[in-house]
């Protein structure tokens, strides 16, 4: 029996890595701009987020992108935790928070930051068999993106990129995707960690249909120069 298959079972989530449980039973306090945020992982599936008002206990999903870098989604919030360098980025409904993990060796003034370093990059991120997005990061605040099977149909999307460490970025692409493509209809945000050393990515797609965790690999292709303008 030929066991090779397309993405019928998991769709755009096919290449997602296994959930990671490294953080279970760990607690992090993230200090940023005079405020403290607590993240307590109560086992493999639930965490408590404390932003100083009413603590929120909620389910989480964690994917690992590097030896000590994690993408954690809890509800509509995301934490990118770099436990090697002691830095964290929180993506909250009220905006981005760049903090330092208390008790780490991070220099007091060091933070993740928005970055334009990716401008000039064109990359294909593959979610599963025959399912991918082409990205052309042609300016800091916008990218051109297309999705299989309509890979020729590029459109503009709002873009933010946060430098997590050398060769690694948290990339936030927002905008309504077209119909009949590889990601669920109604999707309007794709937030992933992109690792240009290993050419792996991990993150999530959100929209009307809910949230789906994704992962996979990247590759480079040749694109029309005009798409970079």
């Amino acid at each position: 029996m030929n066991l090779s298959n397309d993405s019928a079972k998991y769709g755009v989530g096919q290449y997602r890595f296994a959930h990671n449980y490294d953080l279970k039973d760990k607690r992090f306090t993230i200090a940023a701009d005079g405020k403290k945020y607590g993240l307590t992982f109560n086992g493999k599936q639930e965490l408590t987020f404390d932003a100083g008002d009413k603590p929120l206990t909620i389910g989480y999903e964690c994917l690992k992108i590097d030896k000590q870098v994690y993408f954690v989604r809890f509800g509509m919030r995301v934490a990118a935790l770099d436990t090697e360098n002691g830095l964290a980025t929180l993506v909250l409904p009220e905006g981005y928070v760049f903090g330092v993990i208390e008790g780490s060796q991070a220099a007091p003034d060091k933070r993740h930051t928005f970055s334009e370093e990716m401008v000039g990059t064109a990359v294909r991120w593959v979610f599963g068999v025959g399912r991918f997005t082409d990205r052309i990061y042609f300016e800091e605040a916008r990218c051109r993106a297309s999705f299989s099977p309509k890979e020729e149909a590029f459109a503009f999307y709002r873009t933010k990129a946060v430098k997590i460490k050398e060769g690694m970025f948290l990339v936030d692409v927002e905008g309504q995707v077209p119909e009949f493509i590889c990601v669920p209809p109604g999707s309007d945000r794709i937030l992933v960690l992109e690792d240009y050393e290993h050419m792996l990515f991990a993150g999530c797609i959100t929209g009307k249909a809910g949230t789906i965790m994704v992962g996979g690999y990247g590759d480079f292709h040749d694109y029309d120069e005009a798409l970079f303008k």
Partner: protein
Amino acid sequence: MNLKDYPRKEYNIQQLTQPPCFDLQGERFYFVMDDGYDYELNILDHENLEWSKEGSAPKREFYRCLKSDDTTYILHYEVKGAEQRTGHTYVIDREQRLVTMLRCKLGENPKFPMIVSSHFDFGAIQVEGEYLPFKRHCYSNEIMGTTVQWHWRSNFFTQHYYYTSDHYRITVPSRISTAMEFGGATSKKPGSDEWSRYIKIKENMFLFVLVEAYSERLVGGAGNFRSNNMAFLQNYDRMYHVGRSFGTGMRPDGSSFPINMLFGAFGQPVELDPAFLSYPNPFTV
């Protein structure tokens, strides 16, 4: 900058390896094995463990671990101080509480000491107060007929054909030859077929193990080739594998070096040339 030009390391088959997993740190496993010798693993932290064979003192090793799904792990260590290089690889299946152990050794074949031997054993994970599962991971032909293309790194793919219970066949895109034409000495072989084993771990997940034994016998030491034992934990729902390679490599100057590394790749269906699929295995009667 165009991150295509990012100054990344030079990778062989390691680039798309998923990150190492530290899930198991702090855990202790007791494996009841079918060959009568039980094993215990005490995972001390994210890189050190103690292992013991029933009746023996615990030994401390450096280990690495990858996950194929949320509950299935491949864990490997090389036994320090062994007279002949020895590796232990476990597939730890927490969902079914089952384990497959692969013990590998160099030097068992006096004529070809670089060929890595493979000894498999199956067992169950004992948990206090729980029954011991009687099911086992098992050798399986279910995967026979599978053709798959594995993407290892930018512009490097291999295509596998799993066709009998003890061999597999490999080529690379655009080549239909049964010879493995990676530009090295292995292209002198009459075919790319190599010894292999297929073990079913669960539905759509298999441990595929190959040994580059014919290559070692026919061209070992020439053209910078030495052989390895490669264990792939393949997840066909996700179409990816994680695994490890244990054996020997050879530098351009002819000196050899130990290989003990993790790897991984993403798969996709592939149609292979009928001539490639039907070519007789030149190594069997």
